[in-house]
């Protein structure tokens, strides 16, 4: 699928600010499931070109600073991404996880099994895992992960404005509601407690069933490691595999590793934060 993504973030401060230093993780990746044909980053005000580096997780990070006094900061990206068609995607191999299966060697991916800021390895999560597999016994790695993701989908309510950007998995678990960020964190907690290496993915998805008034925003889902095959994405918010409609930007242990925009500045607090995201399909006639 050929998709065009425009993402604009506007910070309006309640007074003049300066010495603003920011990092953004907004560039769609190039991998075996998608290719970013074009990525434009525009920042206002900015005197010099943003520079970039690759972080530990392989995410491309753009950084820039605005030292002079300003009252508004606009960060806008415009990308064109080609995602691999569904029928071209290889099928996921079966890695048995039943009672007699040999556990896969995952030392190289220890960070995706360990505790992290948003995903503590709490007892409540372990308890939940036991409940899920009591109902649906473990069979193979992918099916197990899907079972956990489905569980989140079925037992959680999607309710915006009930959690915040700082809500961790255990708090979301208590409430049983949240948004995709929370769904992803909870699924990660379950996977990790089940010994399944999984990571947090940020990106966008093309909502072909979008209502005109539905908010578009940056999206989050989970990728599960299938040994000797690779990372496969599963979206617990919609109970489906991350298919050609999904545009991946960055991956990490949890939200704190992939913050789309992070930074510091000196001066007045933020009065208003506006985010506008639009994901459209480019068909040959309408590019």
């Amino acid at each position, binding site marked *: 699928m050929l998709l065009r993504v425009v993402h604009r973030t506007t*910070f309006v401060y309640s007074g003049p600010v300066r010495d603003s230093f920011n990092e953004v993780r907004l560039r769609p990746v190039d*991998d075996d499931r998608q290719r970013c044909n074009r990525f434009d980053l525009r920042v206002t005000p900015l005197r010099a*070109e943003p520079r970039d580096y690759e972080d530990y997780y392989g995410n491309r990070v753009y950084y820039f600073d605005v030292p002079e006094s300003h009252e508004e900061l606009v960060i806008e990206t415009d990308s064109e991404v080609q995602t691999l068609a569904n029928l071209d995607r290889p099928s996921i191999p079966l890695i048995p996880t039943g009672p007699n299966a040999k556990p896969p060697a995952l030392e*190289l991916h220890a960070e995706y099994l360990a505790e992290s800021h948003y995903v503590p390895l709490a007892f409540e999560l372990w308890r939940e895992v036991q409940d899920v597999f009591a109902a649906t016994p473990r069979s193979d790695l992918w099916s197990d992960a899907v079972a956990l993701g489905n569980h989140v989908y079925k037992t959680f309510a999607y309710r915006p404005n009930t959690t915040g950007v700082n809500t961790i998995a255990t708090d979301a678990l208590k409430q049983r509601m949240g948004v995709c960020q929370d769904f992803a964190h909870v699924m990660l907690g379950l996977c990790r407690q089940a010994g399944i290496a999984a990571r947090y993915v940020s990106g966008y998805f093309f909502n072909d069933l979008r209502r005109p008034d539905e908010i578009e925003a*940056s999206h989050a889902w989970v990728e599960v490691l299938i040994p000797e*095959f690779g990372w496969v994405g599963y979206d617990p918010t919609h109970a489906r595999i991350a298919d050609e409609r999904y545009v991946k930007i960055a991956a990490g242990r949890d939200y704190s590793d992939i913050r789309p925009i992070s930074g*510091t500045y*000196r001066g007045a607090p933020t009065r208003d934060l506006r985010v506008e995201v639009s994901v459209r399909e480019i068909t040959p006639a309408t590019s």
Partner: protein
Amino acid sequence: MPSVAPMFRPQSTVMLSRVAHSLYWMSRYIERAENIARLLEVNLQFLLDFQGIDDDSVKDHWGSIIASSGGGELFAQHYDVADSRSATSFLAFDLRNPSSILSCVYAARENARMVRDQISLEMWETINELYLFLKARNAAVVWAAGANEFFERIKQHSHLFQGLTDSTFSRSEGWEFIQFGKFLERADKTTRILDVKYHILLPNADDVGGALDTAQWQAVLRSASALEAYRRFYVREILSWKAAEFLIFSDTFPRSLHYCVAQVNDLLRRILGETGARPRSEAARISRRLFADLESRSIPDVLKQGLHEFLMEVQNALDRIGDEVVQTTMFYPVDTASDDHQQLQQQQQQQQ
């Protein structure tokens, strides 16, 4: 399946801004010292040739050189008469003049000292040697011994330094700042060399093209080491407007404005990371505008505007480019009067 092989990450090319600052100024000061040395040497020779000629334009020659160097006011504060001794003293040895040869070499050496770990040993030793040589001598001794030898030494050290930089300094971001400083300074000095002729009292109508006028333009070309190159460009006599055209518009002579600004423009692209067709920064904007002017305008154009006015315009543009680059890449002006020093986090957005 994506490879998980360990990746060799190339060494970081990020540089401290104070290192950029020191390399930039070290380069500018050396170029400045060399240019002043050449300017003084050529004009001392010129006036020796014309000794005894009772002509206002000759008498005022030193005044015009000091005026075009931008030190007119400062000179008037400390000296009464503009003659060869006072001008040389002011432009070469006077530490009260921040652009005297001595001041420039001292400043270049100080900047080099601050980045000693970035430059090669040979580069450091060259500057340090020149500094020690200058420090040990005083003006009177040098003057008595023969000013020529003095200027030769400055030029030679500058050339040696540039040659060593070329062969021992890695082609990194630091290299770009050194070249940027050099060409920016060189362009500025070329405008001042050309401007000398403006400050000389306009000759009488009969004198235009005459021996004195020609000799003065010859001195201008020699001040830029351009006489031989000019002669390859225009074989016949030295015409004032042809000499000006050569020093402004030649795209092959390395001291001409066009050539220097072309280098500055190119280096700015790399320094500021400007890869787009349209400039993003103020420095790049001014630089491209200046380069476009030098690419497209002609000498009749410039003469119609007025050579002096044109040169002032170029100088202003060069000044602003330098200031903007320093503010963008090295040190931006800090508003210390502001009392809110609290550092805040940029607000985060939850992923929906």
